[in-house]
């Protein structure tokens, strides 16, 4: 589904990604871990097409086609979803009209007719139930006045609505208490399917108790320095990131 080959990217001339290689297949969940400043969020942003970053090398194929030249909205319509580390507030725009616009833009791209109001409201209801989301959410403005936990739940709710092929969850666990973490993880697990894939970016192993990954990669200094199965996460938890750094330097 996604293959990243020797991806390099800079911001303001400073190289953050120094040659990332990663293969993600359908049905897989990959966790990317790493210390602060290792380039985890940059990788998420670059995949989503944020223009703060300049890609200086490598290539990314998404479902067999080059991804990097596409605008962020086209990537989204093609099925890439980014769960934001810091979801953005849009005052005065209700979640309902935001989601309706998003869904219809995506449908238009896929040659489908606009979803009728009735179908849309039903979808909204179903997904709220699935994600165990407070039903008042729909009438509130996008993320406005939401608590940290509500914002993260709202990201997962949007993911449920948009049914992406590939979801990249950028530190979805940061700032969550254990209950919120469980709700978010339960939501994510309900969205796992054999025909989609997820990249879960996290600083802590804690999230991976609830979202069990097929692969764990450690990102450090702009490169993936170690890959393994979920046991790698426990090892990291135990030994800390310094262990990886030392091992690499050795």
């Amino acid at each position, binding site marked *: 589904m996604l293959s990243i080959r020797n991806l390099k990217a800079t911001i303001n001339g400073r190289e953050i990604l120094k040659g990332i290689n990663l293969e993600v297949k359908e049905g897989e969940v990959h966790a990317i871990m790493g210390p602060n400043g290792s380039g985890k969020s940059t990788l998420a942003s670059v995949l989503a*097409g944020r223009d703060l970053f300049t890609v200086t090398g490598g290539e990314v194929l998404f479902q067999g086609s080059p991804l990097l030249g596409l605008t962020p*909205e086209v990537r989204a319509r093609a099925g890439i979803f980014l769960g934001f580390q810091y979801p953005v507030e*849009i005052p005065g725009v209700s979640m309902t009209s935001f989601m309706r*616009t998003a869904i219809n833009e995506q449908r238009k791209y896929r040659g489908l007719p606009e979803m009728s109001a009735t179908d849309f409201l039903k979808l909204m209801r179903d997904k709220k139930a699935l994600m165990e989301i407070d039903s008042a959410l729909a009438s509130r403005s996008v993320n406005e006045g939401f608590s940290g936990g509500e914002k993260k739940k709202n990201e997962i709710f949007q993911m449920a609505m948009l049914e992406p092929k590939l979801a990249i969850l950028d530190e979805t666990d940061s700032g969550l208490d254990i209950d919120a973490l469980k709700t978010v993880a339960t939501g994510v697990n309900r969205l796992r399917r054999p025909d989609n894939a997820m990249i879960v970016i996290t600083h802590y192993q804690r999230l991976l108790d609830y979202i069990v990954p097929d692969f764990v990669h450690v990102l450090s200094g702009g490169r993936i320095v170690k890959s393994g199965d979920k046991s790698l996460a426990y090892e990291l938890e135990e030994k800390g990131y310094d262990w990886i750094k030392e091992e690499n330097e050795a």
Partner: protein
Amino acid sequence: MNGDQDPILKQVTQGEYKYGFVTDLENDALPKGLNEEIVRRISAKKEEPEWLLEIRLKAFRYWLTMKTPEWAHLKIPPIDYQDIIYYSAPKSNKPTGGFEDVDPELLKTFDKLGIPLNEQKHLSGFAVDAVMDSISVKTTFKESLGELGIIFSSFSDAVREHPDLIKKYMGSVVPYRDNFYAALNSAVFSDGSFVYIPKGVRCPMELSTYFRINAANTGQFERTLIVAEEGAYVSYLEGCTAPMRDENQLHAAIVEIIAHTDAEVKYSTVQNWYPGDKNGKGGIFNFVTKRGICLGDRSKISWTQVETGSAVTWKYPSCILRGESSVGEFYSVAVTNNYQQADTGTKMIHIGKNTRSTIVSKGISAGKGQNSYRGLVRVTKNADNARNYSQCDSLLLGDQCGAHTFPYIEVDNETAVVEHEATTSKIGEDQIFYCNQRGIDTETAIGLIVNGYAREVLNKLPMEFAVEAQKLLQISLEGSVG
């Protein structure tokens, strides 16, 4: 917001003005220029009584002594008042005729503007007075409203049919000496609408006037007068459009509202005069004096405006809160794109006890547009427990536009509570990216964000107008990514 977006910013603004067509009509027009003779001839054209001509002449003589106001934050080239046609009427129109007497060309024009004048075809719940250039073309539902004692007619008809009411109220809120443009209007006004809601009557439909400037080199000077008797209620809407022309055209109107005890008047405007092209050529100069007086206790006047058009907008819909516990409201969205300039706001004059006012102003600037909020809250000596809440927000798209806030607060009573909040924000790149990431392109994202920003005001508009206004906001900002 950064260098990369400059190209987008520059291709900007091709928000096509949809109403820029011209109807080919034969006009009955007076020659260009302004002098006593012209004033007399306008009055004669309208077969006016002597007393009205007297008012016009007084206003004209007073106007001659006045100077153009220059305190607004506006750059306006000098206007040659001798180079304007002050009266131009579509020739074929028979002013008092029925539907079948209206020139089909005129009907077509209004149809094209989305304002069908055929009552059968019309949106239910709306009655319309259609004004083209200097005269009212047709007023719908006049008869059925008449059965309730409601008068809804062109100003000229009202002068003929209800001279006592006109004599009593015209100029009682905006006297001709009020300001330069009010004096000019009082001298040369040609038509407009008159609304009278009798005691205890709740007007069952939205009343609206649609103003259209068609003829070239012609100014439009209309007056609207709304009187709500004790316990009456009316919601009134006005819309305006004009053809695209390279020359600036002048629009100087007066609106007066009188609300008696327990009466309520809601006045909504969707102003979409031609704004000029993207280089600032052409467009309407819109100098309007709008004021209402809450004469009776517990009366209420509410102004809502969505200002997207005009090259220059100069208007301050105001409320004089004389009755005890009377309420004044002002909700405004003003958009300036390209080279548009707006200096708009309100005056809330608290005279009665326990009077309350609310001001919500949302300015949106894009391109090289300049947008100023100017508002006065005055609490006079006897206005015990007066309350005002003002909120003025400015939204900037791009870095070549400007937003300015000029609040004036004058309080002479220590029991008054006056609150003022102001914010300035930019549409954040992060907001746009967030929308992009959900599959929404930048143009649509800006439309969403701007409509969200203005929602508090748009919600005050009657349903059909709110939808229209939302689209209008989106169109007027098309391409103006910042």
